[in-house]
């Protein structure tokens, strides 16, 4: 016979707790929206997805960031070997032009990823049974895309800003404050690029049935409108032809960027046609609102 002491030391018990009710905190609509934003950001970067989903977004991130690292490195070499020489790599405005095409390609791939799988795979039915409305879903997906694209634009800018500050002959902290006037301009330009590039991508993704089709149509719209708007704006005999330069959405943020950074207007179609930058900004905002409204309209019928 086993003694009671030995019994308690050598035996255990398995308890089937079965179904355990949950009576803790519930975050409701706010939590649902926050969760949708987080999922949207993870989805476009391929986080918690298969490896092949990560490849393209992270290649594009690398392409956007590496030049900033190279510029800081070159500036370091320049300051080491030719002290006092003016840094030719320090223009935040120019860097936006460098990343714009990468961001546009990223938006072409990310916006369909945000919207189309949920529709094709029927996942919208799950959202419809959670404490959120169609508008909340669209806002959350748009916010996820906007935040990722903004991060895409600002990460290399921050890298450059901090890197150049570290190379400042007056010390790091002085370097940070010397260019402080650039910070609101960098943020404003980033927001303008996001407003110009992402709502149209979402609009096309909201109506396309396949991701590749949505990406292709978006890139075509962005690139093909450049020569078309330029050609139409050159018809000087037609009154108001210069406003045709505004048809190219892709060129508008660059036009506004020059205005924000107060630099000489570049080679964008609106600048060449003599259109005021505030008109480009107005068009960006109107197109963004119209695109977003159309996406909301579409999803109110789906959810």
């Amino acid at each position, binding site marked *: 016979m086993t003694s009671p002491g030995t019994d308690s030391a050598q035996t255990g018990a398995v308890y089937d707790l079965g179904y355990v009710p*949950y009576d803790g905190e519930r975050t409701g609509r706010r939590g649902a929206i926050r969760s949708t934003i987080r999922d949207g950001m993870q989805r476009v970067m391929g986080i*918690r997805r298969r490896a092949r989903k990560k490849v393209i977004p992270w290649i594009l991130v690398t392409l956007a960031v590496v030049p900033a690292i190279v510029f800081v490195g070159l500036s370091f070499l320049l300051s080491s070997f030719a002290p006092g020489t003016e840094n030719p790599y320090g223009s935040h405005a120019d860097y936006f032009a460098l990343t714009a095409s990468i961001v546009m390609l990223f938006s072409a791939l990310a916006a369909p990823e945000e919207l189309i799988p949920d529709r094709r795979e029927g996942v919208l039915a799950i959202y419809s049974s959670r*404490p959120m409305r169609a508008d909340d879903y669209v806002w959350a997906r748009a916010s996820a895309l906007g935040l990722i694209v903004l991060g895409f634009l600002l990460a290399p800018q921050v890298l450059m800003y901090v890197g150049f500050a570290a190379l400042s002959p007056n010390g790091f902290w002085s370097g940070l404050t010397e260019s402080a006037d650039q910070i609101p301009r960098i943020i404003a330009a980033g927001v303008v690029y996001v407003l110009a590039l992402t709502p149209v991508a979402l609009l096309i993704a909201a109506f396309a049935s396949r991701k590749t089709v949505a990406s292709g149509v978006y890139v075509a719209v962005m690139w093909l409108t450049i020569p078309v708007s330029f050609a139409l704006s050159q018809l000087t005999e037609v009154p108001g032809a210069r406003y045709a330069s505004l048809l190219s959405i892709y060129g508008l943020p660059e036009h506004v960027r020059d205005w924000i950074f107060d630099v000489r207007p570049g080679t964008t179609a609106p600048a060449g046609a003599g259109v005021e930058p505030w008109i480009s900004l107005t068009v960006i905002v109107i197109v963004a609102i119209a695109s977003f409204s159309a996406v909301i309209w579409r999803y109110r019928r789906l959810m």
Partner: protein
Amino acid sequence: MADVISTEGLSHAYGSVVALHDVTLSVPQGRIGLVGANGAGKSTLIRILIGILRPTRGAAQVFGLDSKKSEIEIRSRIGYMPEADCLPLDQTAADFLYYAATLAGLPPHAARQRSSDVLGLVGLDEERFRQLGGFSTGMKQRAKLAQAIVHDPDLVFLDEPTAGLDPEGREGMLELIDRFSGFDIDVVVSSHVLGDIERTCDWVIMLDEGNVIRSGPLAAHVDVDTVQVEPLSRLEDVAGALASRGADVESDGSAIAVTMADGDPYLLVRDVLAELGVGIRRLGPKETTLEDVFLAADAAR
């Protein structure tokens, strides 16, 4: 018992096609079966109740909350398993269920814990790290059920939960639904398989072409005081003798269903068989299935 669902003059039309017509219901808590043929209006009724669709006319309430004005409050307390595919194919079961829980408002830590528990409950704990795209139909149905209950709702709507399942999978799904009453979760099961409803529900709503043809406790539908006798011979003579003594008799060629407004039908059958000297193959209560009730109610319309 408080009503969990109530509707008043509820109608919905898709263009010229009327999906629901003047539906008035009052349904208590419990396990509720929603039966009807494909296109009867079952899914439309569910979609109105959870606020996805706006009724063309009338009103619906869930937990006493108006489905048009309080859909956020209603959705905070319900779960929904759609009939169609609804799973993101590029996510693992664990990630999806965690996401489904946070979407319902659970904080991250609780969502992680609940998703793990519920995957175990539906028998998918071994598959938690597999992509949903690689799941079989039965596993997908279980994952759909899991997302519907992961946040511990008060009421869960299951739209055709056994659709596409093999007999073994169907049995497993029905067993799971059967356990819900022990979880303190009310259930609305929509199905065109009447046997599934008989097996799992205690209240049944019958829909046909957008109309409610019956709504009430399941026992009231199937408990009919009818005796069924299968004579070895002279079936018509037995039926005639029973009818001549005041019984309602219905013969299907091999058996006779006997109902009496007054008196014991067993005693009458015994007497008639003894008088005629006829043996029997079987004598007992007529097994009235939900299908019989549905067909009778449909015929009465």
